């Protein structure tokens, strides 16, 4: 499976994402923000970082990049798009995902591992994630507090679009386990069609045991499995 990893000026997890998916046996290439084509991508990753320095608002400028039009078209055609951290912020700013990410509740940057409950395992991003326990992934953000209005939250809940929620080691959605004040402990969501998803935690930093945990693999493996199934059904 081939991943296109977007590269904005001051993306800083672009190389990490390429590394993580290659370590899982996939191929990946960087796509420059000024490009208008994604090449032969089977899926797109919008990586973390500080696109354009994020001096205005995280992701606010990146959404206007030429490459984002290509991502929009790709998503419209049903392609899988995953936004991680700053990538999640960009997808929200671009309107590909609902809601917004605002300053952490305590106004501080947080870099620490968190536990996540996978709230919906019937999606291309979550099907291979273990069901029996929460997964552990690192976060590293200053603006990861998920915010949306009541109506949007209800729609997300009704449509089972909330994919990941911050929880404790036992899987309970506690206030203490919520690092940034996100509504409903939301760590990641999908769009209505479930082909675009975003999350604040970093699966790209937790895909090899030597980095202290490899729970992130299951997320990329879910995408690969979903892609393989689609390819097979197209071929049939």
């Amino acid at each position, binding site marked *: 499976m081939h991943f296109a990893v977007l590269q904005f*000026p001051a993306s*800083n997890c672009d*190389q990490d994402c390429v590394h993580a998916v290659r370590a899982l046996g996939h191929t990946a290439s960087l796509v420059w923000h000024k490009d208008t084509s994604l090449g032969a991508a089977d899926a797109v990753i919008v990586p973390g970082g500080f696109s354009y320095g994020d001096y205005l608002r995280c992701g606010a400028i990146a959404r206007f990049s030429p490459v984002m039009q290509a991502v929009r078209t790709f998503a419209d055609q049903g392609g899988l798009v995953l936004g991680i951290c700053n990538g999640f912020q960009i997808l929200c700013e671009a309107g590909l995902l609902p809601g917004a990410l605002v300053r952490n509740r305590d106004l501080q940057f*947080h870099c*620490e*591992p*968190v536990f996540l409950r996978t709230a919906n395992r019937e999606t291309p991003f979550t099907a291979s994630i273990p069901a029996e326990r929460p997964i552990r992934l690192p976060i590293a953000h*200053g603006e990861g507090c998920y915010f949306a209005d009541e109506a949007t939250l209800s729609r997300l809940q009704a449509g089972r679009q909330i994919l990941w929620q911050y929880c404790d080691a036992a899987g309970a959605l506690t206030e203490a386990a919520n690092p940034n004040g996100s509504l409903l402990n939301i760590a990641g969501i999908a769009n209505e069609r479930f082909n675009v998803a975003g999350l604040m935690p970093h699966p790209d930093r937790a895909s090899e045991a*030597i*980095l202290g945990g490899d729970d992130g693999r299951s997320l990329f493996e879910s995408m690969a499995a979903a892609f393989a199934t689609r390819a097979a059904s197209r071929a049939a």
Partner: protein
Amino acid sequence: MNEPAITPELVAKHNLTPEEYEKILGILGRTPSYTELGIFSVMWSEHCSYKNTRPVLKTFPTKGDRILVGAGEENAGIIDVGDGVAIAFKIESHNHPSAVEPFQGAATGVGGIIRDIFTMGARPVAALNSLRFGELDNPEVRRLFSGVVSGIAHYGNCFGIPTIAGEVCFDKSYEGNPLVNAFALGVLRHEQITRGAARGVGNPVFYVGPATGRDGLAGAAFASQDLTEESAEQQRGAVQVGDPFMEKLVCEACLELLATGVVAGMQDMGAAGLTCSTCETAARAGTGIEIELDRVPQRAPNMSSYEIMLSESQERMLIVVEKGQEEAVKRIFDKWDLPWSEIGVVTDTGRMVVRHGGRVVVDVPAKKLADEAPIYFRDSKEPAYRETVRAFRLDGIPDTTAPAADLGKLLAHHTIASKNWVYRQYDHMVRDGSVVCPGSDAAVIRIKADSLPVMSAELAAKVGDRPVPEKYVAFTVDCNGTYVYLDPYEGGKAAVAEACRNLACAGAVPVGSTDNLNFGNPNHPEIFWQLKESVRGLAEACRAFAAPVTGGNVSLYNQRGALGAIDPTPTVAVVGIVDDPRHITTQWFKDDGDAILLLGAPVDAADPLQGLGGSAYLKAVHGQKNGLPPRVDLEAATVLHTTLLGLIREGVVKSAHDCSDGGLAVALAESCFSNQVARETFQFTGATVDLSTVTGVRLDALLFGETQNRVVISVAAADAARVVKQARIMGVPAAVIGTVGGDVLTVKTSQGEFSAPVAALHDPWWNSIAQAMSA
């Protein structure tokens, strides 16, 4: 342009002595222009010239088989780590700017050291920092602490470098003059080493990066004088403003340009900006350089040549490109939307010539300016306070009667307490290389093939598809300023010994070191004595551990008004290699039933203070900063480290943690609770420890004394006897002192027993800094 006339007052205002001015007249054979005076003033400041410390710095060991670029040669030293891979690293201070404007001061300190690394052609992959502040009960100190931490976080996080290790200490001596020492490490292939030399007569000289403004005017000179209330206020404008986003782009563009193979030389514009980068590159290459200031991108209108040459605007680079290859610069810097300008040419005259508005405003011999700053052999005299220190005995200090409570006090002592409030604000995991994160004895990163900078086509052809095996690099920074104050020589030794002990605990062998000498005003003989003595200790220890110094930084004049000089603080970062990932070791206990061993003598019998001199215990519990600190036997230290590494390589060591601040009891407690699984989730492991066979020692000295050369390890119970025997054969005192298990730490001594739930011990340790900051 109306430039001021050169008067003795103007010369003095530039921190140049009449003798220095005479020397300038001799070099030029005429009166300098105003701009030239400014240039000499910054280049001959301590910050750029090391004029007060050069004779002392020469005593450091700087040679070694692995050294590819040595101390003083370039912007950073480079060390071979095998298989064609090398690491570049250096530490540098940004103390004065941080005292004046903590956020920007610290941020630009990080930016500067990162530039020193990619200037060498390396990709920056890790950062650490060593910080000192006054006590947190002072709101002004809290403001500085919080500003410095967010400045470091802002710059490092946005740039995308993991800030993965460091130390933070609090002591009244740093009030008003915090220390901010930033370290960065980069990786590259041997062939990718880039020189800061203006090579090739006729080659064009490029300026890349953002435009030059009036910010940071003469920051190097500012850093080379005492801080006063007045200077702090006046010099706020000397603090540069950092833009990590810009730095990230400049770094990527420079590495991309280097991969084209057209770069003849490169240097960042750090201290003394355009001045330093032009004259140093010419001096290194033995060439001359000619630049045209009208071509330098400028942020403000009507900037004078003085201002342009002395500005320390950030994120700028000087690049010398092979003639005929100018297109490459244009193509790559345009791609990254970065300003660039061809500003000059390399000449064969040996002179640094600057034109502005059609006139020659500077014409000086580059080598004399860069390399011939006056050198001073300062007077030194043992400080009077040493009398009292030497005479200090424990007679007036009652032994502990409440060991559990005292342990609690030490764990909450801000210098010992967990620094999670700090490192949680740093992205310490970006770049997918963080193997051991903050919270253990030393950080460990892995260097993977894709961490290395992109190769030129020529190099790629040469290297072929030979895979680069992963490398594991460990590093740590240490210095106990209290020790150095009380005994500079022993304190210097202890700083290096502790760093190397930390590396050994992580499973690493030292390969090199970089130091940052933070002292007061060297014109005071007592301060200079501290400097000289501590360097003697540092140098001796670096030799003993085969950790040659590859570079570093000197920061003098760290004193402020009535508060006086800081405790002398020569921070030392030591870098080591772990040759097999299976040998990477962490400090926390692993499994119930494992045996706990102490390697090293419980207390130094030859020390009349039993390891309590200068200890955190004396300070935190008895409010005393006195007594000769524990001495370091370097020979015993190397044997201990070798023995520990041998055991680690055998695969029997499950955890290793050195005893330092707070002594054995703190080391045991930390081994019980330092493993953080996730946010709000800790792994607590109890231990039952029996020290009752140690007699004839004060209880406080046994528990909290800081006798050197001690490590707490845990091994499977079945291996314990063998490990003890093996250590003793090597000449290392060793004993089984307890068992891992339960959720309580119990310590039995000849004077009774105490115990505390691990969770209760963890709480003050984990939360005390956050609590102080929310006060």
